[in-house]
């Protein structure tokens, strides 16, 4: 039995990382995922890694979407990528603490602080991780082939509704993303209007929680 398995004496929660640049919509995505997953009976908790404040954690605690005690904030020490990759110990401790406090929790969403295209999650921290970019950041982001874009389990391209307003050819951006990822999943979302969320939830149920 591993250290993690001894925490609550039950099957440990799946740990789901959400990374991506500042302003790409990570918190908005979490706000969409919480009610969608809860509606499907998923017992979940959230950890946020705000860079400078605990604004994201407070935003979720006050959202009314989830019990505020199920939201933990971990300081990033000015290095958001370090806390999810080189030294994720405080995030692991926060996840362990959530599992102790809420026995039976199935899924812990771990939202990274906004970072650059090179950020990736430690394999010892998460079981599955996604990278969120958005169309307003430029349609050349997939072509730049950052490790976040290439190595994530799923690449999410958010704010699709803004494409016509920022001069982005959405079809080309999606095609280039799929090409650089060698066929691995790419999802298009518009968190503001709830578009594309069901596909991600379906994927979490099948590939992370193994429910189907």
């Amino acid at each position, binding site marked *: 039995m591993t250290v993690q398995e001894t925490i609550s004496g039950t099957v440990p929660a799946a740990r789901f990382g959400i990374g991506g640049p500042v302003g790409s919509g990570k918190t908005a995505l979490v706000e969409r995922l919480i009610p969608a997953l809860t509606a499907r009976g998923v017992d979940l908790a959230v950890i946020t890694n705000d860079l400078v404040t605990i604004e994201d954690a407070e935003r979720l605690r006050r959202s009314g979407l989830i019990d505020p005690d199920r939201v933990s904030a971990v300081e990033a020490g000015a290095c958001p990528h370090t806390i999810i990759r080189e030294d994720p110990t*405080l995030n692991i401790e926060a996840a362990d603490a959530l599992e102790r406090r809420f026995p039976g929790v199935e899924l812990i969403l771990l939202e990274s602080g906004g970072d650059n295209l090179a950020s990736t999650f430690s394999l010892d921290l998460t079981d599955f991780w996604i990278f969120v970019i958005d169309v307003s950041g430029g349609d050349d982001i997939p072509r730049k082939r950052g490790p976040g874009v290439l190595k994530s389990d799923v690449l999410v391209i958010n704010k699709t509704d803004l494409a016509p307003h920022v001069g982005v050819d959405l079809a080309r951006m999606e095609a280039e993303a799929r090409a650089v990822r060698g066929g691995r999943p790419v999802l298009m979302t518009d968190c503001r209007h709830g578009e594309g969320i069901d596909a991600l939830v379906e994927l979490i149920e099948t590939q992370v929680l193994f429910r189907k």
Partner: protein
Amino acid sequence: MHDMRTILTLLQHGDSNFPAGGFAFSWGVEGLEIDGHLPRGRAALQGFVVDQLAHRWDSMDRVLLRRAFAADIDGIEEVDHETEALTLSAEMRQGSRRAGRALIGVHARLGGEMAALYRARLDAAPGHLPPAQAIAARDIGLDLGAAELLAGWTLITGLVSAAVRLGTVGHLDGQAVMAEAGGHLEHLLARDPSDDAHAFTPISDIAIARAPLRAQRMFAT
């Protein structure tokens, strides 16, 4: 003088890359910088690091580490509770608990037997950093002198690393501060500390205690 095996262990565990969450703790550097008590430059940081070494680490953390190092598992828990009682600021207590628990957690995952045993007590025990450092040192086979050296050195690297990230000093001045502070650490380790654990670092204690009032906060302490 330490043997090669001990030196290699110290290099691994004293490296700022060792994943025990240390980089998220500034131990007052961030608060002092924001409040204007840590001006840019090598001299101010040098003074702060030396003060922390002499008036907190050597007189308190080191004393508690030594007691925990010599104790059985129940005795370590007593030292842990004593650390809780001796640490005035709530923010400092919380920081020490989080840092200690992180250290115990990573050593338990790396196969440390005492860390795993103590981790099971953390619902009742606070998990403060000095006893956690003693547990970690015993699990990796260090003697007391090496354990003290490692604890003092990780304090120095943590403070300087936070200062570099906050822009208080450049990377070269940071190295100069570390070299100078290393000399002070060597001097402190050359003699046994007092038996009475005590600390007097009021300015940094206040800076840490003021953390919840600040809109900007990148570090856990």
